């Protein structure tokens, strides 16, 4: 029998989004309420399985009475709040954030960002050809996954997933400061000398493709990566008795990537090294 936990009943509170009254449960964020009301707000550092970090600031909205814009992903809705999601002021900040990111980071594998750049009429090349970029080379130091920090927007999600929010391995952290800040293991060493357990839960939450399966990285480099030609099959991991759901991403009859459904009550999107990377036996056809 499946028991669905109901939780403590939560009160509803009322406020307005773009002038329209909405009701949401106490403790929800502005973003939750916006999504429930069918309003699309861009997000990058927000993760459905992680606590909001509100580092990217692309989800900012205007709240009546607030001196600055507020991040929709982390600000809790309050009764009577007047939220405006699409004002010139909010759109301006979103546009600049997109321009700042796109002019310094390789966003070529970030889903949806091209749409937003178009929607907000962002012009990342306006900062000129000499605008500072991250200029990082991909770090390929193991057979399982690649860290291409040229694509890193420093959203902290991998650090949070590796740390106390999920894996408790604490193998990575932000090192350095300001524009020179990078995700790194201690002493900037290769992953193989770190506390990494290769669970790949950082890849699962990475919003830009900076972290990717070695298989995906190689196929992209070879030009053979084709998501439209991939199927996704969700199954149950056979390694132990926990019963994690695996989603196998298959292209040309080869497993190219393994994820886990974020709404799965066992995994919340997390796996271990065996579930994430131990699929070769499936393809052993000898």
């Amino acid at each position: 029998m499946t028991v669905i936990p109901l939780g403590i009943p939560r009160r509803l509170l009322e406020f307005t989004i773009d002038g329209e009254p909405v009701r949401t449960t106490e403790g929800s964020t502005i973003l939750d309420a916006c999504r429930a009301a069918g309003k699309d707000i861009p997000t990058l550092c927000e993760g459905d399985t992680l606590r909001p970090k509100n580092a990217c600031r692309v989800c900012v909205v205007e709240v009546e009475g607030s001196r600055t814009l507020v991040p929709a992903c982390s600000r809790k809705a309050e009764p009577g709040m007047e939220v405006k999601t699409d004002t010139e002021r909010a759109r301006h900040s979103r546009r600049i954030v997109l321009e700042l990111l796109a002019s310094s980071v390789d966003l070529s594998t970030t889903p949806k960002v091209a749409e937003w750049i178009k929607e907000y009429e962002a012009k990342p090349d306006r900062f000129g050809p000499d605008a500072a970029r991250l200029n990082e080379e991909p770090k390929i130091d193991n057979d399982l996954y690649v860290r291409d920090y040229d694509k890193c927007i420093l959203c902290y999600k991998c650090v949070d997933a590796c740390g106390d929010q999920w894996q408790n391995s604490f193998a990575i952290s932000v090192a350095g400061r300001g524009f020179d800040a990078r995700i790194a293991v201690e002493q900037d060493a290769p992953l193989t000398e770190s506390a990494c357990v290769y669970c790949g839960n950082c890849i699962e939450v990475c919003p830009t493709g900076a972290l990717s399966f070695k298989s995906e990285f190689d196929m992209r480099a070879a030009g053979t990566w084709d998501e439209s030609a991939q199927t996704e099959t969700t199954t149950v991991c056979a390694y132990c008795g926990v019963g994690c759901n695996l989603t196998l991403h298959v292209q040309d009859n080869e497993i190219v990537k393994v994820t886990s459904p974020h709404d799965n009550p066992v995994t919340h999107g997390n796996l271990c090294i065996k579930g994430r990377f131990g699929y070769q036996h499936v393809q052993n056809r000898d």
Partner: protein
Amino acid sequence: MDLHFGDSKPTDDERAAVDALLGPPESSWEGADRSDADLRWARGGREARDRRDLLLPGLHAINDQVGWISEGALDYLCRRLTVPPAEAYGVATFYAMFSVKPRPATVLHVCTDLACAAAGASELCAGIEARLGLGSGVSVERSPCLGLCERAPAALAIRAGDPVRTAVSAPATVHDAVLAASAPDSAPEEPSAAMAVPQAGDPSLALLRRVGVVDPSSLDDYRAHGGYTALRRAFELGPAGVIREVTDSGLVGRGGAAFPTGRKWQATASQPDHPHYLVCNADESEPGTFKDRVIMEGDPFALVEAMTIAAYATGAHKGYLYLRGEYPRALRRLEHAIAQARARGLLGDDVLGQGYAFDIEIRRGAGAYICGEETALFNSIEGYRGEPRSKPPFPVEKGLFGKPTVENNVETLVNVLPILTMGAPAYAAIGTAKSTGPKLFCVSGSVERPGIYELPFGATLGELLELAGVRERLRAVLLGGAAGGFVRPDELDIPLTFEGTREAGTTLGSGVVMAFDDTVPLPRLLLRIAEFFRDESCGQCVPCRVGTVRQEEALHRIVQRTGAAAADDIALLREVGRAMRDASICGLGQTAWNAVESAIDRLGAYE
């Protein structure tokens, strides 16, 4: 937490430095040699993890002794405190005063910030670098404001060892700075703090009354000059009475944000969650600000007494004094003052025999402007990277260690003493109706008598500059530091009050008043301000992390341009500046464009 360590071992010096702070390790779990008992009992766990806040002091201990933080030293410190090495590496690389790469034992920090730049810091720096090249045993680092603006240009030498030695050279010449770096022990003694107070000895002063009058190392002298009468008064009034007095006095925070102190105290005192903490923000890093240093060096017991009163009023039994790492003399004076107060029963389990327990711990910053932001300061004390937290929740509810915390600037706290001794009505009668009390102003730049001036709120900018002996050919005045704004020489009638500066479209900030004559090219100053924010951005949020870089790039492009040639970049600056102001997490990013904007709009910097 299953920590992974490399094979690097600490040297004996590094181990000794950490053990001097934490005591010897009890078991192999914390880095000692393995004994039979270690195979039976695992140590560490929550108890060890709860000492995470000793990470920053531990990094200081290693850096003080050796001059840099090696992999073996960092690993050993992590073992002792059960901190993941990756996180500790992230913390060590956050602070400008630490290095995770080998460097000479002596580091000479040469200030290249605004006041020093105007006083010829770049020539000084070039001269020093020519003398102290590779192989000299000194690493020369260009530094943000060292808080010695009244004696610009300034240099600070730090030589690692046991004990660590420091020497200040200000005003610095190439010869003096090289001497300070090569022989810090024989460098001439710094002039007394009173030299930074041109009004020293004036009996009408309230906050600076004792600076230059009392011996800063003598508790008896402090008491003979009215010390500890305010604390006695506080015990008579009781905590609620103290808060009432402070609220009625109209005191607002002097760190720059001008939040009503009484309201902050009341909000903390009424929190049901315990313990409550008091944090004194002495991370004075706003370029041009040096008032807190002068108070701490010239009248350290006043801060100890004021912290005791604030803690008593808000129900705190533990106070942290977060002192910026570049203030070695203030550190020595305060360590001495706290030890004296403890020895005499003015701190400890039973303050003044009143049954109230309170003690103060000093925590040193390590070169990060952002740690002056109140929540970044909490993270820094707790042993994390000094990145601001998002608010709400506010510190009065969840502050240091997640507990209700009242955080005040040094000058704010010291104001509590005259409030209690003269009474709220008399204090509120000083200044204007909306800005009550005396205010300290840090005057530097193109003036004859730079230093800290105490004036009642309401004096005009012109009066203050006259007092300081402003020189001819004034081009601009910077109010509030790098996060503040420029005003023109024809705006000297601006009243120096919170409401007056706001009405004039500028800010009082932390009380910086920096005068520039027309020999200093304005675009250079703006570029320096932009460099400062780029260097000091913590990197957490995009608008500030990348925006400060784009701002610097644009100012660099137009440093020699005016008019139409600069127009495109000025438009770009406005757009980026607006997003930084609107969408950054904290005050650093929100104000990073203020001074540049004011220079463009008020001074016509690129016309």
